[in-house]
């Protein structure tokens, strides 16, 4: 059976794409963010993942309001990035893993998750940038991916509890996958931030810190909140922490718990309180 190694999470701000393209990692503004990654790079070199399931939210590259899925699972052999309209560099295509995609689709539908499946799916910065952050020395991350998009564009959003359950079902499916692959789950987005309205610039440090701690020791903590309660605490874009809940839900199978490899929290990058986290599944 496949091995679920652990989970990764990081913010995915478009401006990071500029910073990487221009080599600003050691600039004073950017260094506190990029310094959160080297301990995780060393861990990744040790555990050598081959396939990554990426929970992310599309920002209007692949999906529009004409057809807005709550959960969409990629089932492509290749995922292309494209012009997102705001001038960040377009990144090279990422390799898919259709075998795991269809295994996940079978398992999720059998477990009553009525997902959308996508044999063509453009992936935006929310999927492509985190892979550059975790594998910075590679032109393209040396892994296959299965992207899973979760709607954060249009309310109502899926409940935090449902997202956590989705993650748990993904974790169960990975553990039951008849493969010798080494698999990671990844979440991208967050932490607290709000781009729009008179409340733009909202950041909630204490909430973020409690959320980060909950990822290790009390993973269902944030599932108590409704979508608007999450907006109130984390901002309109801080609801991206739903991705983190899905990732963490995937690591619950077996109940053996997780070990924190490393985490980092830094305010601000662009308008965002940034979080980075790596968790290893305990045997």
């Amino acid at each position, binding site marked *: 059976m496949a091995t679920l190694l652990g989970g990764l999470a990081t913010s995915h701000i478009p401006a990071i794409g500029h910073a990487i393209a221009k080599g600003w990692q050691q600039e004073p503004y950017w260094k506190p963010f990029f310094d959160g990654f080297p301990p995780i790079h060393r861990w990744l070199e040790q555990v050598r993942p081959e396939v990554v399931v990426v929970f992310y939210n599309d920002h209007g590259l692949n999906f529009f309001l004409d057809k807005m899925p709550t959960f969409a699972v990629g089932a492509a052999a290749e995922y292309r990035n494209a012009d997102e309209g705001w001038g960040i560099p377009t990144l090279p295509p990422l390799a898919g893993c259709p075998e795991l995609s269809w295994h996940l689709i079978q398992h999720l539908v059998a477990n009553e998750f009525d997902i959308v499946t996508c044999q063509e799916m453009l992936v935006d910065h929310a999927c492509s940038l985190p892979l550059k952050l975790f594998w910075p020395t590679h032109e393209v991350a040396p892994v296959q991916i299965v992207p899973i998009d979760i709607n954060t564009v249009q309310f*109502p959003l899926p409940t935090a509890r449902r997202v956590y359950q989705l993650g748990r079902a993904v974790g169960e499916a990975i553990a039951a996958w008849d493969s010798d692959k080494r698999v990671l789950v990844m979440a991208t987005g967050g932490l607290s931030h709000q781009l729009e*309205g008179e409340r733009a610039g909202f950041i909630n440090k204490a909430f973020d810190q*409690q959320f980060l701690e909950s990822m290790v020791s009390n993973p269902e903590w944030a599932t108590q909140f409704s979508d608007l309660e999450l907006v109130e605490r984390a901002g309109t874009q801080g609801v991206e922490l739903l991705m983190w809940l899905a990732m963490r839900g995937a690591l619950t199978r077996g109940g053996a718990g997780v070990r924190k490899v490393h985490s980092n929290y830094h305010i601000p990058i662009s308008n965002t309180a940034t979080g980075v986290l790596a968790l290893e599944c305990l045997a």
Partner: protein
Amino acid sequence: MSSRIPDTHDIPGTTPFDGSMAQKGYALNKMCFSFNDKANREAFVADPEGYMAQYGLNPQQAEAVRTKQVLALLQAGGNAYYLAKFAGIFGLNMQDIGAQQTGVSKPEFMAKLAAANQQPDWPAARIV
């Protein structure tokens, strides 16, 4: 299974992009979605009025686009993610937009973001 009543509580300075806003803003957001393509961005810049007419923007939306006022664009049903593609045409980043919406200068807005570091740490500051 118990049914849940949708949460509708108000959050100051925030209009969640729900079904009502998604209907209201459809034409505006569809136009902004088209700005993923460079050719469309250029076509808009060359003839904003003609481009807006092509997408059927209503007068409120068209006026908000002309003035580039983000709060007005939001009130007209604009969604932050699609509006960001419109803002990109003019080289505006999220700090420009944040400053405009909150009525402060860009340096003041950036200072406010940085000042969030001074918020008290959890667990001393309890959340729930």
